[in-house]
């Protein structure tokens, strides 16, 4: 009865729409705790789905689920403190949507049926749309409109891709359930032309949701306009969910012996995203959009690593996990900055080190982590990807990869230094409260811990997931 993991937040989410502020917040944290508990139980080996035709527990799904669960629990605690200090008006809609969002994302990680996966990913769009419109401003309305329209149209293409993959079954005269696991097992018999076409549509579709350039246009707006806890979820785990759809299709492609086709496309989209992020990050004026472009860059890194395969695939998996932890921590820290300075513009902030010293530690360490510097995990992930690229002979691609990393680092560092040390603001609007400080710290510490010690079941799942896409451990 694995399905209970997403049914609980679904039910509590609906209940939260009818609850008042304080009890809704309580429900948010309690659901988060239960969800974490169930996810750990899944990791410990409890894995019997009630509907095995639609759901299953896969290594890559389990990894994403654990990350989602941990992030949501910490973010829900942060949210309780954040809501009190911010001007969120319809609080019940916010908490209800957060819980539904959790439910739909969990469903993505557990779904095995191609169409159920699509249903779940589209449902994440719908559940998160009200979160972006929380502030009820003209800009947030625009961001929501772009988000819903661009993602829905993109994901509609992924639906077409999924249909084409079932068509490749019909053409290859294969009669198995339309699930990723069954299709991977019989991949060699599928019609290669339709499989390739299906993959391209799925990559473009889910790639829109993942934030790959040039379909990324919605992402900075949505991440910038949503309240910080929601941005942390959007960037930390929603992008991973979309990646999961691409990952599982890529798995079929590899099993069918078409890895050079899908790998090359993934690499091209990955590099394009990195270049786009590098171009736009230099002249950002808002710190949340800065973080959003960094997410586009990281999704590019992950797509690139996945496309390379081998050591690169392992690096991509590490980047995926650590990006979630570090980026969500950065978004939570940015929430503190927003509440304290009352503005999203970089030029309105400054002297973070003196005004909000505890937030500064989280923000600056997060920057070091996301920029790919040791001792955080993204450093190892990127190193593996570069090594993988060289060992597979992709010298030019590796060159572009390193160049974009440098440009992004330079741009990012410039802005972060401004926020942290420049300016002489004397007063801020908010005192740092304990519940707004320790969740980002906990996320960063988890990332740090995972560099030195990985629990055995966790590392087994990573190696299994990576092995399936031709990676080496």
């Amino acid at each position, binding site marked *: 009865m694995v399905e209970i993991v997403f049914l609980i937040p679904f039910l509590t989410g609906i209940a939260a729409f009818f609850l008042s502020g304080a009890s809704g917040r309580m429900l948010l944290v309690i659901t988060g705790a239960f969800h974490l508990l169930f996810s750990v139980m899944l990791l410990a080996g409890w894995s019997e789905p009630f509907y095995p035709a*639609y759901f299953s527990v896969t290594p890559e799904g389990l990894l994403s689920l654990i990350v989602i669960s941990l992030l949501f629990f910490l973010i829900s605690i942060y949210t309780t403190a954040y809501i009190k200090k911010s001007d969120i008006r319809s609080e019940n809609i916010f908490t209800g949507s957060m819980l539904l969002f959790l439910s739909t994302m969990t469903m993505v990680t557990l779904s095995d*049926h191609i*169409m*159920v996966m*699509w*249903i779940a990913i*589209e*449902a994440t*769009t*719908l559940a998160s*749309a009200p979160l972006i*419109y929380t502030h009820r401003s*003209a*800009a947030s*309305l*625009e*961001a*929501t*409109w*772009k988000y*819903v*329209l661009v993602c*829905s*149209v993109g994901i*509609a293409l992924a*639906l*077409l891709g999924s*249909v084409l993959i*079932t*068509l490749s*079954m*019909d*053409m290859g005269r294969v*009669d198995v359930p*339309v699930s990723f696991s069954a299709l991977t097992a019989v991949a060699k018999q599928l019609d290669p032309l339709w499989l390739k076409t299906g993959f391209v549509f799925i990559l473009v579709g889910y790639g829109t949701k993942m934030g790959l350039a040039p379909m990324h246009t919605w992402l*900075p*707006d949505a991440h*910038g*306009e949503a309240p910080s806890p929601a941005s942390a979820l959007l960037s930390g785990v929603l992008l991973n969910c979309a990646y999961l759809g691409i990952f599982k299709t890529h798995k079929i492609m590899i099993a069918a012996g078409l890895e050079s086709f899908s790998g090359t496309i993934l690499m091209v989209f990955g590099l394009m995203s990195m270049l786009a992020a590098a171009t*736009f990050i230099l*002249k*950002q004026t808002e710190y949340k*959009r800065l973080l959003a472009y960094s997410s586009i860059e990281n999704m590019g890194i992950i797509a690139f690593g996945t496309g390379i395969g081998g050591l690169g695939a392992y690096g991509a998996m590490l980047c995926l996990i650590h990006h979630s932890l570090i980026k969500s921590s950065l978004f939570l820290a940015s929430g503190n900055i927003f509440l304290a300075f009352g503005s999203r513009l970089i030029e309105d902030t400054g002297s973070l080190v003196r005004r909000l010293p505890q937030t500064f530690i989280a923000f600056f360490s997060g920057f070091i982590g996301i920029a790919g510097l040791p001792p955080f995990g993204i450093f190892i992930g990127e190193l593996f990807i570069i090594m993988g690229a060289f060992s597979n002979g992709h010298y030019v691609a590796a060159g572009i990869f390193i160049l974009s990393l440098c440009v992004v680092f330079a741009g990012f560092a410039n802005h972060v230094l401004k926020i942290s040390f420049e300016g002489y603001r004397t007063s801020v609007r908010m005192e740092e409260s304990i519940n707004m400080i320790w969740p980002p710290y906990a996320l960063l510490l988890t990332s740090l811990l995972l560099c030195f010690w990985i629990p055995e079941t966790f590392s087994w799942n990573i190696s299994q997931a990576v092995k399936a896409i031709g990676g080496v451990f």
Partner: protein
Amino acid sequence: MINLVDAILSLVLLSILLSFGSSRLPVLIKVIGFQGIVVSCVPLFIGNDLSATGIAFNIATLSIRGIIIPLSIYIAIKKVAIRRDVEPIYGHHASMLAWLGLIVAAAFISDKFNLPAITDHALLMPTAIALLAGGMFLLMGHRNAIAMVLGYIMMENGIYLVGTTFSTSSRHIVEFGILLDVLAGVMIMAVILQNIKKQFDDVDTELLKNLKE
């Protein structure tokens, strides 16, 4: 039987022409509703599944695609009471020409596919492609937010036509889940439309260009 399917599909092709040529939103909505009804009926005619549950699901699909979705957009329009004329960016004549090109291209492409499942129905594949591409065209060719939503629905109709008719392996419950997603998506878009109208007093997406880079 065979001719009947092709006959109603040819009406769908004509309705795409109407959606390109018309500048009145209520007409567009009716066209979308008509297409929704036809694409939900097609699986019944080509006889994939005539069991009781199959027919029940078909009726549910028909009422959602053909009635509820267009109606929700219509109500949204009524509520926001905006100017009901929309002009494609490229103008009507260019749109008509694009429609002709679209049909020719769709027929040409589907000829190449050579799918055994649908050899009896010559117009099935061209119509599906034309709906998909036509939806895209509506989506990109308009600055009016309502027309963009209608384009999205038309695209979805096309994908549904591809899905239900070509693949025999999909299950009703899954199809229904997809349909509910689309329905919820359209509902949310309708709510956003109303808010856009409230905020900007218009639904021109030119007004939605403040967020950049």
